[in-house]
């Protein structure tokens, strides 16, 4: 029988081995599932994993797609490290974008070069506000944050649907559920590359990743808050022994992650849509959860993980166009990947051996 023996010190080898092995195993298993469902596994896997790297503009689109995942994921690191399960980032993303967008649309006189910054700030507040609901319920009344944050995703989806079809609908939209286009100052432009022009959808919003991720890294590794989060996540009682305030930390991590999801929402809409529409997120909030696990709760790891997952997302789009596989197939990969990653964590904590008992 297989025997697990706890290691008294986490295995270092598995830290890198686990994600690498997980990806390889996921690709292999995915291939089998495609074959089982009657698709050509080689062709499908090519479209999903390789095609996004076949053209330079596609490569830049991978970065564009990774951008919201990385930003949301960065926020979720705080939560997951503290063992707080915010799974409603999707809703926080939507509310951030919705509030910021509404501001830009309702106050056109604010259209200056600072509008975007103001909107990002509002987006942060909006996402944080949406995360504040599970946070206050958890800290004051001990309500499970998983279910509350998830319910709020559905509510947020309905809310933006209502706003876009109702109060903020552009009367000139010919019945389409769309708002007016954002004012100039609310838009994020594409980055012009000298000699080439634009590189796919590559836009200035990508820069935010290189600002937010280092800040998150510093908070986690170099501040008392980061230390407190780590302690809360692995030994909640030690938190109170040290004199840290458990509820305050819980509140902060939820607000931070909500806020970052909100920022991601603002950037996504300002850069890629330029107006509000009923669907602005395509499961980014949920996908980011996988990104966080693949990136091993490490801000730097998350950049890499975001790029890998974005590749699959874009690859699935390509596969849909090329061979008609529905793009929900990404969920399949994400799920399997998460299973393997979690198993990797077990192997990091336990030694596994085969034991043959005689008796």
């Amino acid at each position, binding site marked *: 029988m297989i025997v697990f023996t706890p290691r008294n010190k986490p295995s270092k080898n598995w830290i890198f081995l686990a994600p690498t092995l997980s990806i390889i195993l996921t690709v292999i298993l995915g291939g089998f599932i495609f074959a089982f469902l009657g698709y050509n596994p080689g062709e499908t896997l090519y479209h999903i994993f390789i095609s996004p790297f076949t053209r330079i503009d596609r490569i830049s689109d991978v970065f564009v797609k990774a951008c919201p995942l990385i930003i949301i994921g960065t926020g979720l690191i705080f939560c997951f490290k503290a063992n707080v399960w915010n799974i409603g980032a999707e809703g926080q993303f939507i509310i951030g974008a919705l509030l910021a967008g509404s501001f830009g649309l309702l106050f056109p006189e604010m259209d200056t070069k600072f509008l975007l910054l103001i909107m990002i700030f509002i987006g942060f507040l909006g996402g944080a506000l949406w995360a504040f609901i599970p946070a206050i319920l958890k800290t004051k009344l001990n309500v499970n944050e998983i279910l509350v944050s998830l319910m709020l995703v559905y509510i947020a989806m309905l809310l933006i649907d209502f706003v876009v079809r109702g109060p903020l609908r552009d009367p000139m939209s010919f019945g389409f559920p769309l708002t007016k286009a954002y004012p100039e100052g609310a838009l994020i432009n594409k980055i012009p590359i000298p000699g080439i022009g634009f590189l796919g959808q590559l836009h200035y919003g990508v820069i935010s990743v290189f600002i937010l991720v280092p800040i998150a890294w510093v908070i986690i590794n170099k501040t008392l808050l980061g230390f407190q989060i780590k302690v809360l996540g692995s030994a909640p009682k030690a938190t109170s022994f040290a004199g840290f305030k458990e509820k305050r930390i819980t509140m902060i991590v939820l607000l931070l992650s909500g806020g970052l999801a909100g920022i991601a929402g603002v950037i996504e809409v300002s850069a890629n849509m330029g107006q509000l529409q009923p669907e602005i997120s395509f499961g980014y909030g949920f996908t980011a959860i996988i990104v966080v696990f693949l990136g091993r709760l490490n801000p730097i790891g998350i950049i890499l993980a975001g790029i890998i997952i974005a590749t699959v997302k874009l690859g699935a789009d390509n596969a849909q166009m090329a061979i008609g596989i*529905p793009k929900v197939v990404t969920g399949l990969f994400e799920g399997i990947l998460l299973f393997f990653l979690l198993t990797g964590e077990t192997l990091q904590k336990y030694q596994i051996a085969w034991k043959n008992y005689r008796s």
Partner: protein
Amino acid sequence: MDALILTIIATSIPLLLAASGELIAEKSGVLNLGVEGMMLSGAVGAFGAVLWLGNPYFGIIAGAISGILMASVFSIFTINFMTNQVATGLGLTIFATGFSGLAGAPLVGKTIPSLPKIEVYLLSDIPLIGNIFFKQDLIAYISILLIILITFFLNSSKPGIVLRAVGDNHNNAHSIGYPVKKIRWLATCFGGMCAGLGGAYIPLLLTPHWSEGMTSGRGWIAIALVVFASWIPWRIIVGAFLFGGITIAQFVGQARGWPIPSQILSMMPYIATIIALTIISGRFSKNKSVVPESLGKPFVDVA
């Protein structure tokens, strides 16, 4: 009036089934957040089977099997590989959403016959009550029977007591010789079966066609219902009908032209879930024995 009550019942059945299954899993200490995913695969399995084999009764079997298969995936990872139950449950929902979407892609746009109603001889002729209680479909009868059986099982049968013991303290259950992992496997698979049945009910009776993510959060509401019911089976009936009623109220509202936007009405079940959780959870922090003590904790077998 009959019609209204019947629609409420029909809306409640999937929640009722999924929540009863989750209750059993949670009583054994397994927190499976993949209910939404298991319901989705139950729905797609049932839809495919009926389309392929023609008879809606095959949908029941296929739905149950699909749910069990998904629950097995969850069991392998959480029980055998001791992975985090919250994350794995989430992963299962993501996985099953993708899987059902992929498997269901060829089914989009097709319709299936719905499950026939079974009239109980004579009883179905009783005015009002007859229509509501004795002119239901097979799954509806099963679901009520299930609650009765679960109540009996947990309170008065030895295997039921063992199941509660495992959920109360898995190390002690292990040390007096019960196979904790096997019991949890079975409980989780039972949960998967119920969720699969609940999912199957949606295409078999509510909307006779397949669409991606057609369970629209019912799985999550079912998990909340278990909390709402404080892990007591009969209370799930109350909770499920309450939520069924709220969901139907939104359609009634739309039909009668209440001056409230439809989206706001559609939020009602989700808002109600948050409110219900808030009211109930406050009490748990005072009365801990309601929640199965080892819920969500992995059992580590040092042999």
